[in-house]
């Protein structure tokens, strides 16, 4: 592996990115996904965390352009030069440009078109401080090569970790995080669900229990109530017909009947009909009126028919297209009397399911009387 001179790198491991425009070759949601997955390649092995901005100046500005496209470093038409990126730094530092004269695809083996995820993962390596490697098996090898599966080689991992260190969430014991404080203005939620008239909100290793007769939400360790559950819940929803709550964590799901675990769980989430590429569900909600359960993953969502036990056809669909105004990623979702409540970071959106629009925007923890 090689670095740029003086080991150029970002001083802060929270790096922002913004997609300025889109190639017509792919659906917008496919470009979003390819970019998100390309960043995940690097965050999986380092402390780096990537935050998407929709306006203003981000560390890494991403755009598609042909020939001379504004940086006096022109592209060359189809084939040949596919994309380039600048080393970490202010201004154009970190910016990543893709040659719009190429044909971009999300396939892995198509002739004369190039997989956007693979090229983006390589260019983001530059944007993070990696120069080209002479190891033909590494992602940072300058020549484009079709490859499937996890794109980083040992050489890439050694290179990026010598700049930023390892991913603290993997392998090493991390000091236990403090219990989240409910009125922290930046508080975001992991998951939210109903449970026989109560509302359960999951955050880190804890959950809050809200009951109409309880003036104050009650905070408890997940494992003190459900020892079999993992410490981290990604999504949850109640199926009132069957009187069960489904809990998702990673690629596994559990069913709770009240405070008891249902036999035969955990199961894999792919049993619901999700593709194997889905490794985590961000949010889930049951729409009582239609009997459908919506499952949100990155920038897309699926619809599961509880009665048939199958996934509805025509999915995944784009969150941003179908729920305009709430952005394209969610952390948790709840449904009450015709309104969906989308939670993302420290914001919640009250969304009218019938009139398809955002009615109110509030702080996420206003539900905790803050």
């Amino acid at each position, binding site marked *: 592996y090689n670095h740029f001179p003086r080991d150029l790198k970002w001083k802060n491991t929270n790096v922002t990115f913004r997609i300025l425009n889109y190639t017509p070759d792919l659906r917008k949601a496919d470009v979003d996904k390819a970019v998100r997955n390309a960043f995940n390649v690097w965050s999986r092995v380092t402390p780096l965390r990537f935050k998407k901005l929709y306006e203003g100046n981000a560390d890494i500005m991403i755009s598609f352009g042909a020939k001379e496209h504004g940086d006096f470093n022109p592209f060359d038409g189809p084939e040949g030069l596919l*994309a380039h990126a600048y080393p970490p730094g202010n201004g154009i530092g970190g910016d990543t440009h893709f040659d719009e004269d190429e044909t971009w695809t999300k396939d892995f083996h198509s002739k004369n078109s190039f997989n956007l995820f693979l090229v983006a993962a390589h260019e983001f390596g530059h944007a993070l401080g990696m120069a*080209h490697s*002479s190891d*033909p098996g590494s992602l940072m090898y*300058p020549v*484009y090569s079709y490859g499937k599966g996890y794109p980083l080689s040992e050489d890439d991992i050694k290179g990026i970790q010598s700049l930023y260190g390892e991913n603290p969430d993997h392998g090493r014991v991390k000091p236990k995080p403090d219990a989240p404080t409910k009125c922290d203005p930046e508080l975001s939620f992991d998951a939210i669900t109903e449970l026989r008239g109560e509302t359960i909100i999951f955050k880190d290793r804890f959950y809050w229990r809200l009951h109409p007769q309880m003036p104050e939400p009650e905070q408890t360790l997940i494992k003190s109530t459900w020892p079999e559950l993992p410490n981290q819940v990604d999504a949850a929803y109640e199926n009132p017909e069957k009187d069960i709550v489904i809990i998702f964590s990673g690629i596994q799901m559990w069913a709770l009947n009240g405070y008891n675990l249902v036999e035969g769980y955990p199961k894999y989430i792919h049993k619901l009909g999700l593709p194997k590429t889905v490794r985590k569900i961000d949010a889930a909600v049951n729409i009582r009126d239609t009997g459908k359960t919506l499952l949100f993953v990155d920038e897309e969502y699926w619809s599961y028919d509880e009665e048939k036990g199958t996934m509805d056809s025509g999915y995944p669909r784009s969150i941003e297209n179908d729920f305009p105004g709430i952005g394209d990623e969610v952390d948790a979702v709840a449904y009450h009397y015709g309104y969906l409540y989308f939670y993302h970071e420290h914001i919640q959106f009250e969304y009218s399911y019938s009139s398809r629009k955002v009615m109110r925007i509030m702080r996420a923890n206003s539900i905790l009387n803050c």
Partner: protein
Amino acid sequence: AHTLAKPIANEEKDKLLLAEKYLRRYYDMPAGLQGERKASDLMHQKIREMQAFFRLEVTGKLDDNTLEVMEMARCGVPDVAE
């Protein structure tokens, strides 16, 4: 008339142009006029650099393997640090 260089066939000329453009863009070969002999030495040196980077046989010549790599789709960031 015999002192002039032998005219190069078109194909050869295309290969030379491709190589010049490649080495200028990715191996920091300076552009502009430098006299024939100096330019040729510099070109051979840059070809050797590129062959070493791609673990090709280092000949300093534009052989088929080298040209094949130069024609591959690739990233626009230079291979040598600027």
